[in-house]
């Protein structure tokens, strides 16, 4: 059936890319200015009666012609397979080439020479040409494929040491991109558990989330670089549309859980692994963070409730607790397991239904699911406007212990859990 898609103008390069990957580059389209959200009827009428910001022609002329005018054939250029090597050049020229090709995070990289890549490959039993997975910046962009060697190239570029390689391969095997294209500028978070934390000297203590440990820093950077390069790019306006960007994406919040000082079972054990297994758990959607100090005796419940309400309603809270605060949660609330704490967090994080459904993120992503009849959203939709309803799904809430007990500071990260991958399987 003849169809025309209306888009907002800032996405015109994305539309060209998506239609090309779908095998339909001549798909008819018209553009109106961004934003549509929140505009009055008069403003939207002016959009419809105005000019397409991309072509300069009237929007409705583009629409009518898109439904009725013959479409000239468009050649679909075949994507070339990726060569294994780059044309040899000097170090300075190659650094410039990698920068100009959008292959870096705009910081200097370690050039992936054959020798360096071979050293990385020596730390896994997997063959260099084994396919590790497929990745794309967002749905419908086309899944790009990558091998063990391709992951090694990006690990070298990030400055990672060869002994970190199984962790980096496990991150690649998660097939969760750390360079999603979402206009919300989400970041990933990677949490390492098990003996590999000790083996490669990761940090779970003072400064674990910051740039103070070589393994944390370069594994996190490698996760970002491999995501953008192995999914076919992360270029603003094309394969990346994060409106503001996100500083978390430099290192992708990569750290180890402080299992030794945690009063609870480690995160990977919660996910069905044994304590002696080494794993990396991947989260996505990090863009809202709240933080506090300790738990006061009188109003700690209210304070935590307020922090929970500071997390965007679309992304589940993941508590990042310094061991001091983890123990305080036991002292104050008697939560001697993470599960008990999560139960309480679920019951505490509530807001009036009217406010909840009026959030733009909820309107975009959850209200349609509610009207479709999907639970628990459909039940929430039946609540009266002033009835308190849970903001989050209970099973989406997580708790991780990290920090060096310099004080009882703690954070809530909005972070959706994706999966836990065995590091041991990539040794």
């Amino acid at each position, binding site marked *: 059936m003849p169809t025309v898609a209306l888009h907002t103008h800032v996405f015109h390069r994305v539309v060209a890319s998506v239609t090309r990957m779908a095998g339909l580059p001549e798909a008819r389209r018209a553009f109106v200015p961004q934003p549509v959200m929140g505009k009055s009827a008069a403003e*939207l009428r002016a959009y419809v009666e105005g000019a397409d910001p991309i072509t300069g022609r009237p929007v409705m002329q583009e629409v009518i012609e898109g439904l009725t005018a013959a479409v000239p054939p468009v050649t679909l250029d075949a994507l070339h397979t990726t060569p294994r090597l780059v044309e040899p050049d000097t170090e300075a020229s190659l650094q410039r080439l990698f920068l100009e090709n959008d292959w870096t995070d705009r910081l200097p990289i370690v050039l992936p020479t054959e020798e360096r890549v071979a050293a990385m490959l020596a730390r896994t039993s997997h063959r260099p040409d084994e396919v590790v997975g497929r990745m794309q910046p967002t749905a419908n962009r086309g899944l790009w494929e990558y091998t063990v060697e391709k992951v090694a190239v990006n690990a070298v570029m990030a400055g990672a040491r060869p002994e970190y390689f199984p962790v980096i391969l496990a991150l690649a095997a998660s097939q969760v991109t750390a360079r999603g294209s979402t206009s919300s500028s989400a970041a990933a978070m990677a949490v390492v558990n098990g003996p590999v934390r000790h083996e490669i000297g990761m940090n779970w203590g003072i400064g674990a989330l910051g740039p103070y440990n070589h393994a944390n820093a370069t594994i996190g950077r490698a996760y970002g670089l491999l995501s953008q390069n192995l999914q076919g790019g992360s270029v603003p306006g094309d394969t990346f549309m994060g409106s503001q960007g996100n500083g978390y994406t430099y290192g992708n919040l990569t750290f180890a859980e402080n299992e030794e000082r945690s009063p609870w079972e480690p995160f990977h054990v919660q996910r069905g692994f044994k304590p002696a297994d080494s794993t990396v758990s991947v989260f996505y959607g990090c863009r809202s963070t709240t933080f506090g100090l300790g738990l006061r005796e009188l109003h700690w419940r209210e304070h935590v409730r307020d922090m929970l309400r500071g997390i965007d309603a679309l992304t589940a809270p993941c508590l990042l607790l310094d061991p001091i605060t983890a123990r305080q949660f036991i002292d104050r609330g008697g939560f001697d397991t993470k599960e008990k704490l999560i139960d309480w967090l679920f019951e505490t994080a509530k807001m009036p239904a009217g406010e909840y459904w009026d959030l733009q993120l909820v309107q975009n992503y959850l209200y*349609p699911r509610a009207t479709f009849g999907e639970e628990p959203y459909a039940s929430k939709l039946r609540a009266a406007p002033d009835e308190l309803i849970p903001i989050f799904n209970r099973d989406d809430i997580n708790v991780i212990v990290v920090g060096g007990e310099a004080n009882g500071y703690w954070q809530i990260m909005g972070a959706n859990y994706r999966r836990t991958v065995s590091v041991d399987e990539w040794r």
Partner: protein
Amino acid sequence: MAGGEKLSVLNPVGYPPKVSRKALAPRLEGLDGKTVYLVDARFDDSIELLRQVQAWFARHLPSVSTKLVSLSSVYHRDDPKTWEEIKANGDAAIIGVGH
């Protein structure tokens, strides 16, 4: 490593997917007497823009029937029921707002 020495390095980019060519549906000869579905993607108040598109048709091309429908769920989920309705009862579609 001397500054002028040429180095051989590996390409960091993954392997692109194979693209299957699809054919565009034949276009209509005209819209007179036709039914055009306006499909609300339910993103960022897209229905409000489509209401203005519907009003434009009423003002400028009253011989065209328009029907405004919303996707059954979020935009990234397939919606076979809606597609079937449009195929059965419509001649063309305008979908928005893409982003």
